[in-house]
């Protein structure tokens, strides 16, 4: 197999494995489908341009998450972070995000009330199934910081649900 075929195969495997997860993360950050797709594309282009040497699958997952979050931050900085509309204020959310399932839309809207740094740990832990240790490694923060953010996020969401 030629080198390019090998890289294409590697990209295919990585895409099939991580694209949906990265799309979830990007959508929650970027709040719209187009930017989320751009971020996912950029992440895989980085991977394809220079595939890192991963120690294990956990390392690989952490790399993809970290690069995705960084790309989202870069996009938001370039776009002016204050110019986007939070999901819970968007009228036609299904069209904006191309998410048709009502339950999923409601969940995304609920998550959009959380500050970004809380939202990401909630998504990774409760929706993507990452452990506290894995999240800490991916985001390069302490485990206690992860636990604190999860705890505060829970309280915020409980308060929001009570309000509703």
């Amino acid at each position: 197999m030629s080198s390019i075929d090998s890289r294409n195969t590697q990209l295919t495997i990585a895409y099939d494995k991580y694209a949906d997860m990265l799309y979830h993360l990007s959508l929650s950050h970027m709040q719209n489908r187009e930017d989320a797709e751009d971020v996912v594309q950029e992440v895989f282009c980085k991977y394809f341009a220079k595939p890192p040497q991963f120690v294990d699958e956990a390392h690989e997952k952490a790399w993809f998450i970290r690069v995705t979050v960084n790309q989202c931050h870069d996009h938001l900085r370039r776009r002016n972070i204050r110019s986007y509309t939070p999901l819970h204020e968007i009228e036609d959310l299904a069209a904006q995000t191309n998410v048709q399932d009502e339950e999923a839309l409601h969940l995304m809207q609920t998550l959009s009330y959380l500050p970004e740094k809380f939202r990401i740990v909630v998504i990774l832990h409760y929706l993507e199934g990452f452990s506290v240790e894995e999240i800490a490694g991916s985001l390069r923060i302490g485990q206690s910081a992860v636990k604190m953010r999860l705890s505060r996020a829970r309280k915020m969401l409980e308060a929001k649900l009570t309000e509703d």
Partner: protein
Amino acid sequence: MFEHAQVQSYNQIKAPAELKQRVFDACTKQEKVTTFSWQKATLRLAPLAACLLLLISVFALNQKDSLVIQVENTPVTTEYMALAPMTQPSDSNALVRTVSLEYNTYTVRLTLDQQVEAFSATGEISIAEDGTLEWTVAVPYEDTLFELFLQTEDESYYVPLQYLVNEGSFLIRCEKQ
């Protein structure tokens, strides 16, 4: 925290089918690469960290005067001063360059006209071959204060580097202790 049905619904969200081909086309053609590039020679030598190089020129008026740190010929005073924003690599006239690879770091290069007896900092400090100090910090996800302490023969200096996440920018100041 969430009901099983909610989690299941969430996991039904899939990346659009057409995105896969778009990603493959972009990757193989490298049409859309958002990696910011530093000069290639530097990139080859640099670690996989993202670097933001900022030249800070330091001039002392005389041996007895305070150390003066300058950024683009503007003195850094005791009041916080915003540093130049990260720019695209195509902006060749920009003082700063960004490289975004595995993760983002920010490197401040200080050129000192006095010998530094000691220093300590949050982040990493290295001394380049020409005697300049390179101070590297990881770009964080929240407002963060990084600190550098310099000790010349006669005086001590405190250089805080403040990162503001909402602005995505760094501020710097300097004060004699």
